[in-house]
Each structure stands twice: as structure tokens, then as C-alpha cells.
């Protein structure tokens, strides 16, 4: 049809010959497979040490308790695939959580309190997208600025007062559907939808083209500026969805910026295989990476790693994952 459908695939294939299914899978989803393997190895090893690790409750803690990070990382993966970055997402989630909680306590309908963070998140990030796309300010500059503005603004407005007395119906992250915790279902559903959208729609695939080679993308008729604003707005929507899970997990909302959340989200996206140079990576990888971090965090407590060395071990594992991916790519090329 048009050039858009023939855009470069998710990852360039190495040879012209037809490859076997397994090989192709590994070549296209190498990093995802590495992260998944690391998760499985951790599960096996830690379960051998302490079988309680795979108890239903602990699986809920690992998967459901960190789902909001995975959801935020989906939007971040899209931003990074497009060749941008957002360091303000943690502050944004703090602000949106406060808005959502305040509305819920003030007696607005529950659906409105859930919808508000999504809409406001889209609006704020659309402004960031406009500054990036039309005013041509690098995304790291805009989002560094936004980080300061959102963090300072939140403290100025709320003074840090906690939001309590949340209506029970508002607390969706504590509910179960078909026996599964809602955050887990939301995380899986959003990951699958976003992955399909990025792989099979013209819009989704155009993100890879913009991140891979913006000039070529422009030449093939992709409206880069409009798409950039749109992808920032979509990222804002995911931040809003992440906020709903984040804000409804406890009976109180701490109206401050969650410490280092932006770093966790960015790390999940890039360790999951999203190239910071843009152009490659999937949201499946970012979700798997979130699960990997959550698994590591829990595993280290289960195997009694001295808490003093915990962060060093996490850093070592992240580095090992990254290096393994690079060696794999090199071995292939």
C-alpha cells in the first residue's frame, strides 16, 4: 500500500535467507527473552531456597504491587522509541495522584476521579510534546524543567497534607476480578494492547521510523511533529492510568513526589530493550524488566542478602543484563 506499511521492522534481520522460527524469535525479541530468562532463573533458584517465594501472596506482591511502574514504563518505552526521554514522569504521577484523591474525597463520582488523572496527564504531556515538537526544545530540557515545576507546585499547593478517608469504591487496585488482582490484569491488558498497537498499526510503526531516522520518516510522509505531540499525550495517558493503580493501593495517598520513580521507570524501559537511540524495542520488554526488578527486590529479601548490599546486587544484575544483550547483538553481527 503506502510506504508506511513497509517501514523497517522492529529489529533488522541479519540475513536474507529465511531463518527458523526460533532463530527469528530470538533475533527479534532477544532482550525480552534474556530478561524473561533472568526472571525464570531467579524464580527457580529462590524457590529452591525458600518455597514461600512462589506462594500466591508473594506473586501478588511482586506482580500487582509494581504494576503501576510497568504501566508508566509502557508510555516511557514509546517516548524512548521515538527518540525522546521524560524525566518528569515521577513528579507527574505524584501530582495526578493528589488530584485524583482530592476529587474522590470531595465527593465527585468515582469514574470522574479515575478519569481526571488520565485527562490531566494527557494535557500536561501534550504541552510538553508541543514544546518538544514545535518549539524544538530537546525533551530532556523540557522534562527537566517540568520536573522542577511539578515538584515545586505540588508542595506549594498541598503543603504535603496526606489524603485520607478515600471512599472504598475508589480503591480499585485492592480489588480482584476473576480471582486476579486488578493491577495485574490492567498491566497485562495494557502491555498486550500497546504491543499490538505498536507492531501492527501504521501509527504505532511510525514511532519506530521517527526514532530510527527522523529525516527519512519525514520523507515518507509521516507528520513527525503531530505524531510527537500525540505520543507524549499517550504517554501522559499511561502515566494517568499508572496513577490510578498507584493512588488506590493504600487507604491513604501521600501527596508528595514518589522518590526516584522516574529513574525506575526509565530503567525499566531501557533495560527491557528499548534503544535510547530510538527506533527499536517493545513494551513487552519494559513490562518484563519491571517484573525483573520487582522479582530481584523480593528475592534478595527471601535469600537474606544483607540489606546494605542490596542495591549493589541490583546494580550488578542490571549491568549483567545489559552486557549480555550487547554480547548477543555482537555475536549475531
Amino acid at each position, binding site marked *: 500500500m503506502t510506504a508506511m506499511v513497509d517501514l523497517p521492522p522492529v529489529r533488522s534481520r541479519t540475513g536474507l535467507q529465511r531463518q527458523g522460527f526460533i532463530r527469528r524469535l530470538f533475533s527479534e525479541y532477544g532482550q525480552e527473552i534474556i530478561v524473561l530468562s533472568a526472571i525464570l532463573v531467579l524464580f527457580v533458584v529462590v524457590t529452591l531456597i525458600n518455597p514461600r517465594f512462589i506462594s500466591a501472596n508473594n506473586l501478588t506482591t511482586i506482580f500487582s504491587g509494581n504494576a503501576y511502574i510497568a504501566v508508566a514504563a509502557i508510555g516511557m518505552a514509546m517516548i524512548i522509541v521515538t527518540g525522546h526521554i521524560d524525566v518528569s514522569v515521577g513528579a507527574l504521577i505524584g501530582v495526578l495522584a493528589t488530584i485524583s484523591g482530592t476529587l474522590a474525597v470531595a465527593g465527585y463520582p468515582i469514574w470522574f476521579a479515575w478519569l481526571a488523572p488520565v485527562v490531566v496527564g494527557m494535557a500536561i504531556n501534550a504541552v510538553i510534546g508541543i514544546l518538544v515538537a514545535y518549539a524544538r526544545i530537546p525533551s530532556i530540557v523540557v522534562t527537566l524543567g517540568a520536573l522542577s515545576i511539578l515538584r515545586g507546585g505540588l508542595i506549594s499547593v498541598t503543603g504535603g497534607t496526606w489524603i485520607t478517608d478515600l471512599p472504598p469504591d475508589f480503591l480499585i487496585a485492592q480489588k480482584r476480578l476473576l480471582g486476579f488482582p486488578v493491577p495485574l490484569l490492567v498491566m497485562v491488558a495494557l502491555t498486550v494492547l500497546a504491543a499490538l498497537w505498536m507492531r501492527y498499526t501504521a501509527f504505532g510503526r511510525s514511532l519506530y521510523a521517527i526514532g530510527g531516522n527522523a529525516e527519512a520518516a519525514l520523507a515518507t510522509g509521516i507528520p513527525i511533529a503531530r505524531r510527537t505531540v500525540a505520543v507524549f499525550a499517550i504517554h501522559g495517558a499511561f502515566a494517568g492510568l499508572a496513577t490510578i493503580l498507584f493512588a488506590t493501593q493504600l487507604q491513604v495517598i501521600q501527596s508528595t513526589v514518589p522518590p526516584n520513580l522516574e529513574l525506575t521507570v526509565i530503567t525499566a524501559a531501557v533495560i527491557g530493550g528499548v534503544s535510547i537511540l530510538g527506533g527499536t524495542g517493545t513494551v513487552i520488554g519494559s513490562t518484563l524488566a519491571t517484573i525483573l526488578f520487582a522479582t530481584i527486590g523480593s528475592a534478595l529479601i527471601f535469600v537474606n542478602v544483607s540489606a546494605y548490599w542490596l*542495591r549493589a546486587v541490583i546494580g550488578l544484575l542490571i549491568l549483567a543484563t545489559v552486557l549480555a544483550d550487547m554480547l548477543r547483538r555482537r555475536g549475531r553481527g
Partner: protein
Amino acid sequence: MALRSLIRHETFLALLLVIVLFVLSQQSDRFFTVGNLLNQGRLMTEVGLIAIAMTFVIATGGIDLSVGSILGLSAILTGVFWQNAGLPLPFAAAGAIAVGTLAGFANGVIITRFRVPPLIATLATLALYRGLAEGISQARSVRGYPEWFYLLGQRDVLGVPTQLWILILAAVVASIILAYTTWGRTVYAVGSNEVASRFSGLAVEKTKLALYTASGFAASVAAVIFVSRVSTTRSDMGSGIELDAITAVVLGGTSIFGGRGTIVGTMIGLCLIQALKNGLSLAGVKGDGTIMLIGAVLILAILASNLFERSGTRT
């Protein structure tokens, strides 16, 4: 052409700094005094040293997010080498700087030999080095340094805070290297077009390796100054300082995509941020208001500079 637009950004920024200094001095008569301004120099030295090295790194199109963690690691090691290993303090500090430099070198190796993109590599080492600092310190602080050690961080030499001399020296040397040596031109060339630089025979990998090593060195020197200024070590020292340094660098006109940037710009950016923090506080604005304003200034300064530049190229 590129040079002209660059100078335009810095002129604009310098003008902005003058306006800010003027406005702030109208708000409080204690702002524009020699004593206060020198004192601000003391407070911005650590960020400044890191920002100088970061200017080079960003000018090659790279980034180093692990500087805050290297600072923490070197700070802890200064104390541990001195107290637990029993080394004389100058050797302890030198040892800590050596390890910090090595940490930067490790970043460089991961980036150049294993071809890991800088952002990912330094995100990973950000966690690793901070983790090492926590593990080594076991949450203990080392205190009680000899009085002479505070000369570095809390005393003056010739009426100027000691560490400000170091910052000025570093800025001058770095400006000369970046502006007048072939090596400096290599930095810009790598940042503009890495592939072309490689084909034209420039030592791309060696340059990058040296820059990340230098970044580690700057962060660990900053660590020793920091320890001397606050007279204690903590494993959480310097967390978040990477964002402060990057803010100063990009405000100073260094392109995050590489190929452009000057030390003068970074220094003006640094002074602008520090002047706002200090002056607004003296004028009675609270901390949360100040960080909001700094965020807005960052976006608006780059926006305005972009607009000028574009109107300039069109005519």
C-alpha cells in the same frame, strides 16, 4: 555559522544573568555583596566541577548519570580509607579519587568496548556505584577529620573560598582544552557525526574513554571537597546531583545531541541557577517556589534562544 549561533546563545544567557542579578539585588540589599557572592561560589563548586566534565560528555552526544553515585562512593571511601584502613588523610583522599576515576573509566569501557549506549550504561552503574557505597559504609558515617582538612571546604585562600579557586582553575583549563586543542575539536566532531569522525581517522573511542574517566575524576574530586565542606561522609551524598549538573550544562547551551557547547556557557548557566536559588530565597521566596521558577527559566531560556537562532538563520 554554528559558532555564531553558539555565541548568540551565550550572549543571550549572559544578558539574562545580568538582568537576574540586577532584579535580585533590588529585592534584597544583602544579595549583591562580595561576601554573599563568594559564599555562593563555595556552594556551587561540586556541581560546577561535575558540570564541566559533563559539558564534554554531552558535547560528544553522550551522558553520564552515574556522577552522583561516584561522588557518594568516593566520599565513603575517603572516610573508610582514612579511618578503617588507617591511611594518612591525603593518601586516603587520593585513593578515593583514584577509585572514583576508575569507576569513570569502567563507564568508558562499558560504553566504548561493549558499545552500550551511555544512558543505559550509566543508569546501570548509577545503581551499582550507589550500592557499593551503601555496602561499604554499612550505613556508618566517618567524622572527626583533622582541622587542616577543612581548609579545602570551609576556609578561604586570599579571601576567596578555597574550592572556588579549584573551580575557576578547572573552568579555565577546560575552556582552553575544548576551544583551542585538536582534542577539543575531536569532541565536537564526535558529537556532530560519530561515524564520519571515525572514518576520518579521529580517535573516537579513546576520546570517549578519556572523557568518561575525566567525569569520574571530577565527581570524586567534588566528593573530597564535599566531605571537607560538610565534615562527614554519608552513602547518600550527591544523589540527584547529576540532574543539577545536566540542568546547568543544557541551560548553558550545550546541545544534548552533541556537537555544540562551551564551558563559558555552562558556567553562566551554573551561576544563573545559583543566583536564582540564593536571590529568591533572600527575597523571601520559599524553596518550592524557587525550584518551580528554575524549571520555568530552563524551558524559557532554551525556547527564547531557539527563537532568536531561527530568526537569525532566516534573515
